[in-house]
């Protein structure tokens, strides 16, 4: 590993550590936030118990697959909001001209920006995801796959939000669009893909990438399919690449000072 990468990593780790320290100032709030998020997620299981009382499968998923779906969604969403929470609120920084501080630092701007905050309840999401996966009785190979999909899911969530958020370099009000779309994505990601058909299914695989973040991974975990695995990996790389490209394109615009609204 080159020293530059090592140094960057050191800054990132310190950043995450300091983020957590900030939230731990009030320990009670910190712990209740996490534990209530776990309870919160767990309460939704009631819904699935009921639905599986009515039918053997829901949208082609067994109860175990629903647990995997929830596990992956919660864990990826959680991890992305622990490490890269700012990728989910980028428009605010752009509009208020708060990127300046990162631009005078000799580190990668994108990484510095997205690691600069944390959502504490996300720790609860991550833990809940892992607990659910543990209930799924995965074999060693599945665990390795699940870990891989946790990484790709985290990247897909982060990159998708970053992509939308970066549009705020060009357009106003992107914060609302970003927020709503990401929340919508999470909602879809907690239901089986079998209930969606036709156009909506296509949209949910390729435009709002729920399919790539969790549905394909669950299918691969349930029954291994190399093609699907490669699709997920390829799509993740593509999405990550384009979101980074759009961010830097936007950053150039930021540096040219011709943003709408923002100018100091």
């Amino acid at each position, binding site marked *: 590993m080159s020293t530059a990468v090592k140094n960057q990593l050191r800054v990132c780790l310190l950043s995450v550590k300091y983020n957590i320290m900030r939230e731990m100032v009030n320990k009670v709030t910190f712990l209740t936030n996490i534990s209530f998020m776990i309870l919160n997620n767990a309460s939704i299981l009631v819904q699935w118990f*009921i639905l599986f009382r009515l039918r053997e499968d*829901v949208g082609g998923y067994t109860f175990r697959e629903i647990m995997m779906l929830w596990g992956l969604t919660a864990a990826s969403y959680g991890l992305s909001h622990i490490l890269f929470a700012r990728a989910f609120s980028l428009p605010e920084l752009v509009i208020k001209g708060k990127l300046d501080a990162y631009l005078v630092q000799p580190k990668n701007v994108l990484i510095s920006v997205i690691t600069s905050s944390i959502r504490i309840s996300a720790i609860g999401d991550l833990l809940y995801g892992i607990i659910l996966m543990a209930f799924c009785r995965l074999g060693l190979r599945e665990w390795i796959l699940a870990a891989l999909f946790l990484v790709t899911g985290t990247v897909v969530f982060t990159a998708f939000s970053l992509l939308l958020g970066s549009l705020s370099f060009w357009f106003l009000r992107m914060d609302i669009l970003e927020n709503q779309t990401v929340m919508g994505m999470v909602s879809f990601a907690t*239901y089986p893909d079998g209930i969606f058909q036709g156009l*909506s299914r296509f949209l949910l695989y390729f435009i709002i990438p729920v399919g790539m973040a969790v549905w394909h991974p669950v299918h691969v975990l349930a029954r291994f399919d190399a093609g699907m695995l490669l699709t997920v990996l390829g799509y993740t790389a593509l999405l990550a690449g384009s979101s980074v490209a759009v961010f830097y394109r936007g950053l150039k615009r930021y540096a040219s000072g011709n943003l709408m609204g923002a100018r100091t």
Partner: protein
Amino acid sequence: MRKYRVIYKSVLMENLQYAANVAMGFFSYFVFIYIFVKLWEYMYRMPGERIAGYTKEQMIWYVMMTEMIWFGSNVASVANEVAGDIRSGDIAYRINKPYHYTLYILTKYTGEWSIRLPMYAVFAAVIGMVMVGPLPKFGLREVPVMALCVILGLTINAVFKLCISLFSFWIEDTTPFQWLYDKVILVVGTIFPIEIFPEILQPLFKLTPIYTVCYGPAKLIVDFSPEKCVEILAAQLLYLVGGCGVMLLVYRKGVKKLYVNGG
């Protein structure tokens, strides 16, 4: 009474300006309903099939109505604002005003949902007609009593949430309890009608606020019957009186504590 009307009016005017922001929330509502339409389309396999006594249309309209109530009344005043007032000590300035603090908050809350709820109602009606089609048993004649039932449900909900907030007099952070309360309502009360749960649980649910806050109003809308109507309204009145009693009691105790210990 007049002063509460004035409070109501000014909150209403203030919130009218945020109507556009309210409409932003339609997206989340739509996503949620869309998922449920798809879900129930999958679950109902034969035409005319009934699950727990509900046809597919009724089942979807049920979710749309409970979620309409939920989204339409989802405002911060009864929860965060009260807790914030108490924690920051601002409450000391508020209780010296010549109105009753809890009534002031409830009035404010009413002003807030008076904008949101009708907006959601129209939106729900439109997407319901487009995606599901009309409800067979629905009659316009019953709309006023349905509306009354929804409003009573909202108010009962607010009273309960206010009660929880008032516990901020004793404990530092009541948000976890708000959360828990919301979760129970949301998970048990909005997604499915009570009839779908195992039979041993059903009488239990009828004793919780779920029955009066969301199940009752939604049930009346999707499957109206005069007997049900009387039963639900009676239960709501009972809950409202009881809830207000508890609220006033907690409030009085809290204020007493405030005077003893200072802000």
